[in-house]
């Protein structure tokens, strides 16, 4: 059975094109992906991302437990701070990528991908054996609304929320438009903004309020189509495309989220530390096509006539008009430093240049 978020009827009424995504019937676009994308880059957009998983982790051993399942050092996470991390298996391959929020003493919120919630929970339960930890999957009780774009802050302020002391990658209990919620200054677009975690029954009221108050800022509802092009321009990984169980955070270019000085052991640590010390054989790079062709997920990459990797995500970048992609290639200095490589598209090779990620400047660092 395909699941509906509490905002499903709103999307249908707004005329959204609906698709099945990770078991949910979700809006892929309301008007046009390009138009919605530009709205988020220039003004502000509202996303229903209630399909995401919310798991509360608490109990005497919560910190020790989380520290055992992610490379980030959770012992160093401050109250109300958020941290991007991954859930590696014993080989360092990734079961999922997550954001962990510290809500209080031995009290955490984990937000994970809709497509991976079952795998995550299985893995978490297997790893908590013998520990005093409560795992509370609340995904079905919460809606998640994301407000993203250069005018997101003005909008949230307009809604009466005092954001002055809330920096990027923090979460706070808040009351916005009379609704009790958790306000997180995070997102998946490369823009500044908030993600609001709210009990299902208030989600429709909040959705309408945001659109109403956002009108003067040019707000539009944004579908999953633009969410994908926005995250790809910002070179944010998508699980299932750019991350999987055979790829480590080091190969994925996520070394910045893997502390080298973490003392505690965690799943996959040996492999991951060995890759930090001795290098990796494959590496995620950005590509820019040199003709009009678009590299898509699964296409092969060639260098000097030999297969050198594959594309994991690709699209036309609505902000730059260039055709961009992420690809795993052999970690060879010649390829990874601005080489011209080829992508096999419909049985023909098309030139692309290896370029720096992200493809657009991120504006969410506060």
């Amino acid at each position, binding site marked *: 059975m395909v699941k509906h978020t509490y905002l499903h009827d709103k999307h249908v009424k707004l005329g959204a*094109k609906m698709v099945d995504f990770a078991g949910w019937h979700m809006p*892929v*676009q309301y008007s*046009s*992906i*390009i138009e919605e994308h530009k709205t988020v880059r220039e003004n502000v957009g509202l996303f229903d991302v209630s399909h995401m998983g919310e798991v509360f982790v608490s109990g005497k051993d919560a910190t020790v437990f989380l520290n055992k399942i992610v490379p980030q050092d959770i012992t160093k996470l401050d109250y109300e701070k958020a941290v991007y991390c991954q859930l590696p298996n014993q080989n360092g391959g990734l079961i999922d990528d997550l954001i962990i929020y510290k809500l209080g003493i031995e009290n955490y919120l984990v937000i994970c991908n809709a497509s991976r919630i079952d795998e995550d929970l299985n893995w978490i339960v297997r790893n908590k054996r013998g520990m005093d930890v409560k795992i509370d999957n609340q995904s079905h009780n919460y809606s998640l609304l994301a407000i993203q774009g250069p005018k997101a802050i003005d909008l949230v302020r307009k809604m009466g929320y005092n954001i002055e002391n809330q920096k990027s990658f923090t979460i706070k209990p808040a009351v916005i438009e009379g609704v009790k919620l958790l306000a997180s200054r995070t997102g998946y677009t490369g823009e500044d903004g908030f993600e609001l975690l709210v009990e299902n029954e208030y989600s429709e009221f909040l959705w309408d309020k945001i659109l109403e108050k956002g009108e003067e800022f040019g707000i539009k509802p944004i579908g999953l*189509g633009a969410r*994908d*092009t926005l995250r790809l321009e910002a070179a944010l990984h998508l699980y299932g495309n750019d991350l999987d169980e055979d790829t480590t955070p080091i190969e994925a270019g996520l070394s910045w989220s893997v502390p080298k000085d973490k003392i505690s052991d965690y799943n996959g640590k040996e492999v991951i530390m060995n890759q930090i010390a001795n290098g990796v054989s494959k590496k995620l790079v950005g590509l820019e096509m040199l003709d*009009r*062709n*678009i590299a*898509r997920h699964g296409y092969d990459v060639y260098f000097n006539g030999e297969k050198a990797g594959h594309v994991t995500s690709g*699209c*036309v970048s*609505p902000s730059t008009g260039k055709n961009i992609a992420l690809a795993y290639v052999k970690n060879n200095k010649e390829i990874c430093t601005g080489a011209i490589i080829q992508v096999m598209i*419909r049985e023909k090779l098309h030139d692309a240049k290896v370029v720096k990620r992200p493809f657009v400047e991120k504006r969410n660092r506060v």
Partner: protein
Amino acid sequence: MSFTEKILCTKSHEYILKGDTCTVGLTDYAIEQLGDIVFLELPEVGDEFSKGDTFANIESVKAASEIYMPISGKIVEVNSALVDAPESLNDDCYENGWLVKVEPTAGEDEYADLLTYADYKEELE
């Protein structure tokens, strides 16, 4: 008679306007479903295809799709202006948004499974 009253459609969303040379394109329903068109690849004049062959490729922001020949034929003209401005298909896929002109190379029986636009629309419901 409006354009759509004159065309026949395939279940894979191509249309054909019959004539000595036939005009082939994609229906408005197909364009609507694809969304923002960002790429179009057309065959070359002189290329020959059988009914059902892939003769062109189209991509929206989200995905790549193949376009199939509604009948067997030889390409006699391609709408090359569209290749440089594929987004114009979102505004007009009929009068100015045709893809290729084709000289049929097989018999009338190839039209048997094509639908009038009205029947095609009904089929979609």
